């Protein structure tokens, strides 16, 4: 918080503060109830920092998709506000266009997103909606297709693609708009290992180039390896938030929300508990980091510390 904030109105204060913290997207006291009476979001507040990798964990029906549709302006919150780049979102044409240009969603099922029978045309849709000149649209579509490794599919029919290919095309659909924030609704669900790895590599590249990524997932291991920040959503409320180290160390929280501990973290804790890893080191995030740590530790120390209480 700025110190000299006495004589400023609250709106400009907020703007300044957001810029200082570099918060790109923020929800304040967001609530959303569907017409059938389902209270999908209950008073949610969250801040998304620019350039971060954010994981949103939660069971099916926890409200993740509703939250994302609110972030993109497809749904309008009944109470609460959304701020994008420090400014409150206005629900008129200009405001929505700005929000949707800045925040893209990749939906869980690519079949709901791909509306055209031609891959190239489907990807071009978002870019054309930005009213860009045709030459730039073509260049962006080519880039998006190359970036998702789908350029060879550009003349193919959408319905002849495999699930993994459709998924990558649906990502290209959003990349073509070059948004600041991309929201992925369970991007690795139903994907095989190769495709998952390919998509996670793609995410890494996107994040390096400055894009803020939000990912809904069930996979705690992917979250542990990937995320800078974790939000845990349950029944429309945020139950926990913070760095993965903090969130996954909070056992009561994990119990209450039914979320498991990531295997790498659990292994590390056990190895430390039995004294195999002695020196306090940064907690490994991936299998490889854990293995490196194990290889570094002297095997003797394990023998000495071996007797453990059953």
């Amino acid at each position, binding site marked *: 918080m700025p110190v000299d904030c006495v004589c400023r109105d609250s709106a400009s204060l907020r703007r300044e503060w957001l810029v200082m913290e570099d918060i790109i997207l923020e929800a304040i006291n967001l609530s959303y109830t569907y017409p059938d009476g389902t209270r999908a979001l209950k008073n949610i507040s969250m801040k998304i920092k620019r350039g971060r990798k954010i994981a949103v964990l939660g069971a099916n029906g926890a409200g993740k998709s509703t939250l994302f549709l609110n972030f993109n302006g497809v749904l309008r919150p009944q109470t609460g506000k959304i701020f994008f780049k420090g400014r409150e979102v206005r629900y008129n044409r200009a405001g929505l266009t700005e929000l949707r240009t800045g925040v893209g969603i990749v939906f869980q099922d690519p079949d709901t*997103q791909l509306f055209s029978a031609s891959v*190239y045309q489907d990807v071009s849709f978002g870019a054309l909606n930005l009213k860009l000149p045709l030459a730039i649209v*073509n260049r962006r579509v080519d880039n998006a297709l190359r970036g998702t490794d789908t350029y060879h599919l550009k003349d193919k029919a959408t319905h002849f693609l495999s699930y993994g290919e459709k998924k990558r095309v649906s990502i290209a659909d959003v990349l073509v*708009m070059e948004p600041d924030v991309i929201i992925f609704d369970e991007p690795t669900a139903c994907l095989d290992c190769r495709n998952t790895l390919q998509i996670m590599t793609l995410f890494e590249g996107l994040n390096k180039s400055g894009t803020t990524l939000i990912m809904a997932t069930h996979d705690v291991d992917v979250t542990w390896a990937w995320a800078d920040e974790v939000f845990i959503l349950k029944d429309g409320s945020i139950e926990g938030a913070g760095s993965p180290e903090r969130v996954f160390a909070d056992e009561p929280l994990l119990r209450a929300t039914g979320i498991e501990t990531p295997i790498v973290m659990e292994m590390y804790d056990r190895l430390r508990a039995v004294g195999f890893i002695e020196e306090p080191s940064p907690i490994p995030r991936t299998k490889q980091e854990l293995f490196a740590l194990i290889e570094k530790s002297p095997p003797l120390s394990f023998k000495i510390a071996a007797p453990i209480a059953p």
Partner: protein
Amino acid sequence: MLHIDQYAYLSRLRGEDPLLKVLFTSATMGICLWADSVLISLLVIISMASVTVFVGGISGRFYGKLLLIPLSFLVVGVLTIALDVSRHPAGFLCALNFAERYVGITVPGILRAVRLFCQAFGCISCLYFLSLTTPLVDLLAVLRKLRVPKLIVELMGLVYRFIFILLDMADAIYTAQASRLGYATVRSGYRSLSALASMLFIRSYKQAQDLYAALESRGYDGELRVVEPNYTVALEKYAVVVFCECLLIACAVIVHRCGGSG
């Protein structure tokens, strides 16, 4: 039938200017209908089939099988045309007597039927050429170029895309039902089928809503703007097509002059 679509994508003529293909198809079909002659119809059938199979690279076996599909409809339709009704038994090759009327086959009747049969087959071969070389996406581009209202073209595109999703859905539901003996008896079969139909309806509705949300999130404002496929318009190819059509017209005129319209 969905294979047609797959073959259209594999055809060697896929990359050609779709407007040219539409022009070629409609002109040939028009001439075939106008000439109303067995010889011209046969010429159209042979040339269209060879262009589709040899130039387009569609397997001959598949093409033959495809031709068999409309054959049964055609035979039934044409048979009724071959029949004549008269009060006098004269002129019939063979006839049945029904209460002072004769129903049977006459020579002009047969000729009429053969001419119509060939004409219809000629048109079918023209349409097969188009559908086996041109994916629907390209046809939609042609329709847009021809200034067909946007709404119709957009709807055609969406319907086409969602046929496949609907089929996948129906297939998945059917398999799920069949694996639980949903179609073991006629009775349960009917029950499962009705559940399948209502399920499909509900899911399509949901799918449409989801699609709308997804389109909106990408900036949809009432118009599905997409980049049109880019084809090189080669005037010499147009010239070749025009030349072929002129040749066909000339043939038709000659056939008529020689009185060989039958």
